[in-house]
């Protein structure tokens, strides 16, 4: 069945590259090698979200049983989002699991992942810490997601205050991404973040 998978991906790639809507949105897919079973995707952070201005990279692994089973999609760009693991980049999205249908394509997948950035589903979380923050402290969630988009996805206009907090902790000898993780999961309370790093 590997033949259906490869020939379908070949077709879908052509389709994605010719799709006016995707081109306009700067959504793209490329092959990782010649196998047609591993691809990389790129989606811009949607407007009016903390991800705006960032570029997010995806890894798309096509199973040999594609399209009868969904592709495995994960973020390779670090991102702060209730339905995406802040550690592994794994995505919790129904169409990539039990709601997959064989007529769905790379186009569907890319647009759905992009839509997920605009509309988080905190009740079906992948990252419990982010989901809790999203529900209990929307403002902290927005600032953290924005900070991560600037730090990892190339978005501009980061908050100076948050950058300084990360610096303060790195000056104590902690590594930057650990410092960011700790601050992010403690609503940017430096004391609690340091405590967390020490434990």
């Amino acid at each position, binding site marked *: *069945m590997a033949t*259906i998978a490869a*020939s*379908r991906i070949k*077709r*879908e790639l*052509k*389709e994605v590259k*010719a799709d006016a*809507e995707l081109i306009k949105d700067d959504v793209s897919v490329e092959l990782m090698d010649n196998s047609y079973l591993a691809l990389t995707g790129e989606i811009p952070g949607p407007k009016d979200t903390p991800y705006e201005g960032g570029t997010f990279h995806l890894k798309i692994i096509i199973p040999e*049983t594609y*399209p*009868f*089973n969904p592709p495995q999609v994960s973020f390779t760009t670090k991102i702060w989002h209730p339905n995406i693991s802040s550690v592994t980049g794994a995505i919790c999205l*129904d*169409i990539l699991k*039990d*709601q997959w*249908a*064989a*007529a*769905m394509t790379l186009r*569907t997948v890319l*647009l*759905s992942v992009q*839509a*997920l950035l*605009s*509309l988080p589903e905190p009740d079906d979380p992948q990252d419990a810490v982010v989901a809790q923050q999203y529900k209990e402290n929307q403002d902290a969630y927005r600032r953290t997601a924005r900070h991560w988009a600037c730090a990892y996805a190339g978005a501009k206009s980061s908050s100076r205050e948050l950058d300084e907090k990360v610096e303060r902790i790195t000056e104590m000898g902690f590594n930057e991404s650990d410092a960011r993780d700790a601050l992010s999961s403690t609503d940017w309370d430096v004391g609690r973040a340091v405590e967390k790093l020490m434990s």
Partner: protein
Amino acid sequence: MPDVKTPSGPENMDSDPNSDGLKHRAHANSTDADEASKDSENAGATGGTATDSAEKDGAGSQESLFECNICLDTARDAVVSRCGHLFCWPCLYQWLETRPNRQTCPVCKAGISKESVTPLYGRGSTKQQDPRDKIPQRPPGERPEPETQGPFQGFGFGDGGFQMSFGIGAFPFGFFASTFNLGEGGRFMGHPHRPQVPPNPDEQFLSKVFLWVAVLFVIWLLIA
């Protein structure tokens, strides 16, 4: 020119696989709108749907109309679902085998089963058979409820639609069958791939009661 859209094939139905995804309705709708405007432009050409789906494919041919919704190639041993979606039989078969518990159309997620699809016989097909002998009428597009195949299906609670009415309808016959040993060991009649349900104690009790009522009724008839 809204009449251009009337020869509505599956393309014009709400058949976007995104339809229960997140907020893709927006995307799907805008695509529909685009297609509708293309339709109007092509009002003179034959078959608005053919033209726009060919354009969507970028191939500029009419081939895509007959592409399988799973392998995206021209459908071989083509079958069409009751919701109007076209597949190669091998492709659809594999999809249904992959998801035995959730048999839904890969395009629109309507209920689908191996029995409910209609094969299409073209002129050049191996079986030289007039399609009208087998297919009295082209089936209209429908949206039956998804037919779940869970372990407790067939009892008629919450399954909905077709499955439910069948389950209830067949129930008394199930009693008869087990009571008079006519059936296949108490298996319900009616549905081809319902798993065999061993008669439970309650059911056996009910069967006995049913039998006695029947016997008393016959006796009463004889006396009266």
